[in-house]
């Protein structure tokens, strides 16, 4: 071996480290320097690398992508599959009877004590569309889209408390601190619109989810990939509007001076980061108009407002559905909606199956249906994946918190089975995947884990979940974690 000079060895080492485990850092900080260009050229083939001047550029997909973007509708609290999509006539027959012991052995519950009673479906079901998909009377508008929906009835998770279970759905891990699916997707696919963040989050229902921003965190990925929360009150994106006295014209004047001064700094110190910074200030300036434009629904035609049930200026799930379509249209990659209030334990009126749950169904039925119609008529459902679901399911038993039956009707958390549906790009509409047991308590045929769902989502976007990975703390970290996950081929079109 020719003895290498220490420097060459060092550079090689650094190169390896960059491509292997640390390119995280360079891909965010690097822009416009020939070093990075060199490094890029030298990167081992097949390793994920962003264009050196843009961390929001797309990585080479592993497979042919079907979907260009995702709209993920999360019903925080976990809606009952037994009242909406998973029709269980057997459960009806058991209504009011004590739960057989076989269903209780080895199970852990959040609130149920001892032996609860079974509870039949609290809504009427019928079949819809050519596919004959079962949907309950509580979602009459959505039922019109029966042939667009692909029901996954056998979702299951290993978490039965909200916080960890929500983290599972969005980050693939039950602890805080991991990158969310939206971050992974933005890391993999970048953004189509340089003036908007690639991953945006919209909330309705008035409360932040209990683990808060951890649900759209970039975890150990650089912060450029984290979800940007959009708000209906105040700035649509934090700090997007100027302080008093800073008109757009004045801001431009100031930025022009700043740019020239920073160029001088670059000439003096030679730090490539300075050039990146100049570019980021310019993008920020463009975002200041792009964000308010996309977030204003004032100019939507009356027909659209009618269809969604939207009212400009309000914070509502309906408004967020319309915004989701607008963001999708503008090239935002991952649009995450959270709706609050689905935890139907029956402990209070607002959280009872014979109370607030009925209102929640009304609040989402028309807007989701409108979103699907709207995407379809714009030709966007073909390359947009819409996902709907909660963080776990609900028990076929009636909740008996504290060991006694409550006045209102509710169901406890059930990690064993729940329904999620997908619609749009790359999935078979009008299908139903998997079967739960006769009482809808656990996934019986073709169970689908959260990592399976993530693997499928990434697959539709063109990525093999096993290879969309970054090395961190000694592991090849993936959205799908360390245990095996599989793409659900049965739902792909």
């Amino acid at each position, binding site marked *: 071996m020719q003895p290498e000079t220490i420097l060459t060895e060092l550079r090689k080492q650094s190169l390896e480290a960059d491509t292997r485990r*640390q390119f995280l850092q360079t891909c965010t900080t690097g822009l416009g320097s020939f070093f990075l260009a060199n490094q890029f050229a030298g990167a081992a083939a097949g390793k994920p690398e962003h264009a050196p001047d843009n961390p929001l550029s797309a990585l080479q997909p592993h497979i042919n992508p079907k979907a260009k973007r995702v709209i993920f509708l999360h019903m925080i609290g976990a809606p009952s599959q037994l009242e909406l999509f998973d029709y269980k006539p057997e459960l009806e027959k058991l209504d009011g009877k004590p739960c057989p012991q076989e269903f209780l052995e080895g199970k852990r519950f959040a609130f149920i004590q001892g032996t609860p009673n079974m509870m039949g479906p609290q809504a009427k079901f019928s079949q819809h569309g050519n596919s004959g998909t079962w949907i309950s009377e509580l979602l009459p508008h959505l039922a019109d889209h029966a042939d667009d929906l692909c029901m996954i009835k056998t979702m299951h998770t290993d978490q039965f408390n909200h916080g960890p279970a929500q983290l599972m759905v969005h980050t693939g891990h039950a602890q805080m601190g991991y990158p969310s699916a939206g971050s992974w997707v933005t890391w993999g696919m970048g953004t189509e619109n340089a003036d908007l963040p690639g991953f945006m989050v919209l909330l309705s229902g008035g409360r932040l989810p*209990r683990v808060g921003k951890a649900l759209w965190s970039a975890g150990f990925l650089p912060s450029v990939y984290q979800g940007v929360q959009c708000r209906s009150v105040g700035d649509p994106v934090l700090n997007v509007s100027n302080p008093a006295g800073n008109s757009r014209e004045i801001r431009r004047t100031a930025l022009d001076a700043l740019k020239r001064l920073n160029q001088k700094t670059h000439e003096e110190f030679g730090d490539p980061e300075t050039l990146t910074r100049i570019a980021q200030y310019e993008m920020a300036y463009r975002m200041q108009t792009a964000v308010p434009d996309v977030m204003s629904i004032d100019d939507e035609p009356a027909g659209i407002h009618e269809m969604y049930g939207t009212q400009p200026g309000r914070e509502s799930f309906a408004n967020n559905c319309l915004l989701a379509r607008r963001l999708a249209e503008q090239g935002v990659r991952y649009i995450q909606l959270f709706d609050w209030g689905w935890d139907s334990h029956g402990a209070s009126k607002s959280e009872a199956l014979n109370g607030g749950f009925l209102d929640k169904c009304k609040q989402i039925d028309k807007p989701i249906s409108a979103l699907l119609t709207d995407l379809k008529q714009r030709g966007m459902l073909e390359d947009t994946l819409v996902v709907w679901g909660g963080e776990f399911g609900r028990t076929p038993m009636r909740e008996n918190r504290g060991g006694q039956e409550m006045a209102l009707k509710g169901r406890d958390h059930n990690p064993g089975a729940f329904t999620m549906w997908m619609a749009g790009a790359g999935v078979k509409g009008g299908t139903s995947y998997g079967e739960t047991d006769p009482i809808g308590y656990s996934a019986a045929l073709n169970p689908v884990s959260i990592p399976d769902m993530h693997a499928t989502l990434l697959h539709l976007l063109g990525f093999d979940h096993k290879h969309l990975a970054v090395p961190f703390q000694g592991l090849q970290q993936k959205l799908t974690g360390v245990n095996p996950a599989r793409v659900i081929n049965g739902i792909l079109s």
Partner: protein
Amino acid sequence: MLSLRGEETVSFARDIRPILNSKCTGCHGGVKQAGGVSFVYEEQVINFEGDTGNPVVKPGDTEASEMLFRLTLPDDDSDRMPPADEHPEGLSDREIELIRKWIAQGAPWSGHWSFEKPTQPEIPVVAEKAAGGNDIDHFVRARLEKEDLQPSPPAEPGRLLRRLTLDLTGVPPTLEEMEAFEAACATDRTKATQNVIEDLLSRPAFGEKWATMWLDLVRYADSRGLGQDGKRTIWPYRDWVISAFNEDMPFDQFTIRQLAGDLLPGPTMDDLIATAAHRNTQTNNEGGTDDEEFRTEAVIDRVNTTWQTWGAMTFGCVQCHDHPYEAFRHPEYYEFLAFFNNTADSDLSNDEPVLRVPNDPKQYTAARDLDQKIRTLQNEIWKEGRKTATAAKWSALPLHHASSSNNTKLETKTVDGQHQFQTVGTVQRGPIYRLYSDFPASARPVTGIRLTILPKDPDKALKDSEWGFEISDFTADVATADGKETKVDFSVSIADVPYLPNEPNTLIGANGKGFEAWTRIHHTREIVMIPKQPIDVAGKKLKIRISNKGFLLGSFPLVVQRGFLETSVDETLTAFGNDPGRAQKRSDLAAAIKERNAIPSTSIPVMAERPQSISRPTHIFARGNFLEKDKAVSVGVPDSLPSLSAGERATRLDMAKWWVSDENPLTSRVFVNRVWERLFGTGLVATLEDFGSSGEKPSHPALLDHLAIRFQKDNAWSMKAIIREIVSSSTYQQQAHASAELVALDPKNRLLARGPRGRLSAEVLRDQALAIGGLLTEKVGGAPVHPPIPGGVWKPFQGGDKWETPPPGGEDRYRRALYTYTKRSIPFPSFATFDAPSREFCTPRRLVSNTPLQALTMLNDEAYAEAAQGLARRMKYETDGSVAEKIAAGVRIATARQPSQDRLDELVGLFDKLQAQYQSRPELMKGMAGSPDGAAYTIVAQVILNLDEVLTK
């Protein structure tokens, strides 16, 4: 390197291990050990006979070594290693040659570099010594000479002062300090620099700056995380860290106190506060969550954080299986976990155990003395009682009636001569048990009743605890045959442990205190009730009533699930209950408690060991799953590192001392590397989080060892000394200018041919802006503060957690960033945007990003807008002279140097243009105070605050 025979000498660490790690350990590593072969462990390679019966490697014998045979098979042979389908590229000829030579040379095996103790390297001799500077420069220059590179000249004084002041104190120098330093440099630069370094190290702001690094590691936050993320009061620990840096507490003490301050002999208040380090773990108080699950999560986090913080090892991997690359076995994870598994905390919503920290540190000693006195009295009182209770003779009490209120059902059965009662079916919260026994006419008066409480399944509960119980009241009546009832008066109850969060040793039911296994039960528990007078039960019915009020997280009834009663007729019991000496001790105790309660204090969670009698055994978790317990283990450290002198009897304190023992190869290196990274932007080992074989090798291994030894030995673990040493080097003090060639050659400045340059951290950016705007409050320590936060951000899950911002001008509006309330689920927006972690877990290294949201924050966030106004005021009102002079002063305040003429012209031009705009269109100033020139100064100030030169050091 060439040997005598002219043959190259192969180094295992340098040449062989990298090949094994990249091509072999995927299948023959810690996780997969195909054919039992693991290239992580010597004994699973050298002379190890795998499935084929041939030694994988036979030292000196290339022919007999199966490894080489397999490597050299043709690609299409199914026995070829690595298998062609997974490693189509195979090993290169060169790599195979290296392995051949290594085997031929005797296949020497060696540990990973960081597992070997650092040895003092020779200080390299260099052609050109640095002016000023120290040994560090020799190491750096020796390397530069080899590369034919020149170091850069020293930074200009103003910029050097700014770098030093920001790095050591986190705030920029003042104008006066710049002037004084520049003047002093003109006469003796070296001396002026040394003086300023001493001055900066002695400021309280030093601790405020360096605490942040540590708080990232120990994941300090003011909230509990996970389910509800409620507020947690733990800030006295944050202040402890600041003081530790300011007082230059030696790192060994710093370590021992945090990991095991509670186990030190006669711990001081400060020793106990330090243990809050590991109470920064998340707890989950969401309804329906299993306390044992989240207690376990917290313990696991303590293990992983300890290994990250002190060892830079990815020990967390070992939770589920052997480490894929390091020599850490799966059981070793749990042996280490055992050090932490017996602390009293258990994911409780009240954060127990807590320490009441006096608000006035002057009262620390008095408060600790009282705490000790209280604890001693409690112990004495308990011991006497327990002795009496244990000595007495007890007989089983037959139950003739056992029932429960509400839907909870009790059944009775006789087990081992005990008349046990047990719940069946659904247990409803809050049941009251009625347990009756009929005594024969011959019965002697009862002097004590003993209640023993068992887990439903005692054998299993020891491994997998059950939900516990809380007896909120225990009463008894005696009924005669004609139905006349007399209430029994009890004098005292004696529990089986000396103290619990709810002190049970007075009397159950008194002052709302009960007897409990809160919230889990592992062991059989018991309590003795002593009546004031022997109870005459002859021919009567004893009616016992046990009230179970406990109910947890909206879900779990904490009730006695199984138990039995016994009685005694031993009069020593009643005598004990009525002993006036005991009463005296009790009243002493009450007085001490009263006195302690009078000291205004803040309660914070701390570490404390559970009593030995109810300690938790530690089991291996199969595949890392806490519900699948494998065999039991005792404490230990991994075999691949120096052993513990105390062996299996070691405590958490021994473990803490092990980290800072002379033999430990990791701790000192890891810490100096962290310091280096904070000062230079990249560590000597770039992977701060991984000193293992998958981490990076050090760029300057000898320098790393030199610094490690300087820190640990020569400077006796002084953190200030090692920081002083690094910033005193001429390497650190070089100017940061880089030519295009140098950037191309060494983009990350790993060779250090120039001074450090990099974006400031989230905290420093904000503190600097406030300082430049003349707003920063210099007040050290105290409860977290609530500076302005953008509207709509603060929507905590729990409504009671308010964000109350002081009005403009209020002192707490402008405190240093590290005092800002750190809520995990709602990270403070401007900090999160600039890459501050949200502190869920140990963060060894922050990734530095450069994004448009950062620009929006710097330009538009309220704090920065106020800072710009502040700087505008300073320029307009506090500086004499022309507009150009005023603006030049503004630039100097912010950048620590005079602007060049062209830059000044740019800013003055901007000012003129803006002033004209505001003059002609006053409506543009709406919402801004004052006049067109004031408005123009504000925008100019904003531009200055956003200069690349200001955002970087």
